[in-house]
């Protein structure tokens, strides 16, 4: 099985944990690296590997506070790779959390929902 992927949270990078053994997939925090391609490249490469032989169900939780537009582009790439899990007869879904007062993150979630072909729930965070 693929080794888990973990990336520590910094002031401009999100916390990422992809752990197939424990079936835990999560991205949270801020994402505004100046070079998002550099940061997301290994993340997406891991997903490409994983999507070849995924768990029966994969549930990615996104609870971002802020991300810049170049991160948005890389997240789209990531979601597209995740979408390919559907072709393997396994299940995949994404839940996108936003703060009740945070219209920007809610709107960004709805935008992703509108352009992806993957079950994509946009939910208010319960405090």
């Amino acid at each position, binding site marked *: 099985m693929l080794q888990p992927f973990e990336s520590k949270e910094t002031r401009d990078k999100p916390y990422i944990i992809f752990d197939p053994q424990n079936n835990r997939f999560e991205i949270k925090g801020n994402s505004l690296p100046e070079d998002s391609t550099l940061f997301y490249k290994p993340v997406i490469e891991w997903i490409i590997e994983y999507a070849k032989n995924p768990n029966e169900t994969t549930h990615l939780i996104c609870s971002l506070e802020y991300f810049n537009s170049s991160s948005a582009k890389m997240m789209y790439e990531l979601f597209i790779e995740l979408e390919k899990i559907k072709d393997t007869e396994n299940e995949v879904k994404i839940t996108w959390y936003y703060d009740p007062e945070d*219209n920007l993150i809610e709107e960004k979630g709805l935008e992703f929902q509108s352009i992806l072909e993957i079950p994509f729930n946009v939910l208010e965070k319960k405090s």
Partner: protein
Amino acid sequence: MDINTTFWFFDRIKEDNLCMLYSGNFSDEITNKLIELSEYNINNIDALSKMKKKASFLMAECFQNIVRHGEKYKEVPSDGFFLTKNWGGVYYITSGNLIEKQKIENLKTQLEKVNSLSKDELKMLYREVLENSEISEKGGAGLGLIEMARKSGQKLDYLFKNKNDNFSYFYNQIMLKSDIDALNQKVSDFPLTDSISYHKKMVDENIMLIHKGDFSQDSIFPVLKIIEENLHKEFKDSTQKKKIFHILVELLQNISRHCYKIGDKKEGIFLIGNSDSNFVINTGNLIKNKNIKSFTKLLDEINSLNRKELKNLYLSKLRDRNLPNNGGAGIGLIDIARRIISPLNYHFHPIDDEKSFFTINVIA
């Protein structure tokens, strides 16, 4: 503040390695971030890094003066002013705060006394004030002034400027000379009156923060923090705060990605202020003349679209996997345009055959 304000400041501070101006409230959080930003700037310039400790100390001293006086006059909006700049081998620190007119004479006496003393006499006076609690209680500022004169090794440069019937601004400017430059470079001369004219412009046009210098990622964070602190007071609505934050990040990162690089430096200027209940953000940077045409085309295209069309363009760029990321795609600008009141206001100011000054102005 309108689009011309960017060049007004840029033209006056273009020779500066760095320049930061702040006009507004001085909370501890804001002063800490102003120091952090200044320290970052100092670290980036080799000739200055040696004086970092001294500069930080002097900045803190200036802030204490502003804060101490600010607390006394709660009935007036605390409008303080702070400037740091590096130009021609000299690091300048300027501060301004309101003072009750009846207290000017006493402060003047203190300033004149400090300026009349030699290095050794200052040291003696410092000890005397420290040991005599009565003196230090009466005027904490006295000790600060002595320390400023001692640490900078210069006479205190100061001016009082009328604000209204009851208050005047007290301005104070410190010069720190770097070792290397003092030997072989012409020392720049930046009169205090210039700082004061910048402050006036900031007050008249409601400008909170101006930063000219390096726009690498590390310098963006203290800038964002200063703005966030101010936004915190201005808005209870977190959606508005998030929107301003988002626009700032995109514009600042655009400078970093697209500006004309001088050496390793990603230089630009950034201004933020208020207009009615909105925020006004200006950025400016040098760009190569050969890029003007394509850039104009992109900006005009964005400005010709309505919100719905902008959203569609944004989504199509998001989905277009052939587009280069990190610049070129204009996705950041498109997303900004979706969230601002007026179109993206922009202007190119010719500099020479190779480059122009590009400035953008948004209201959100």
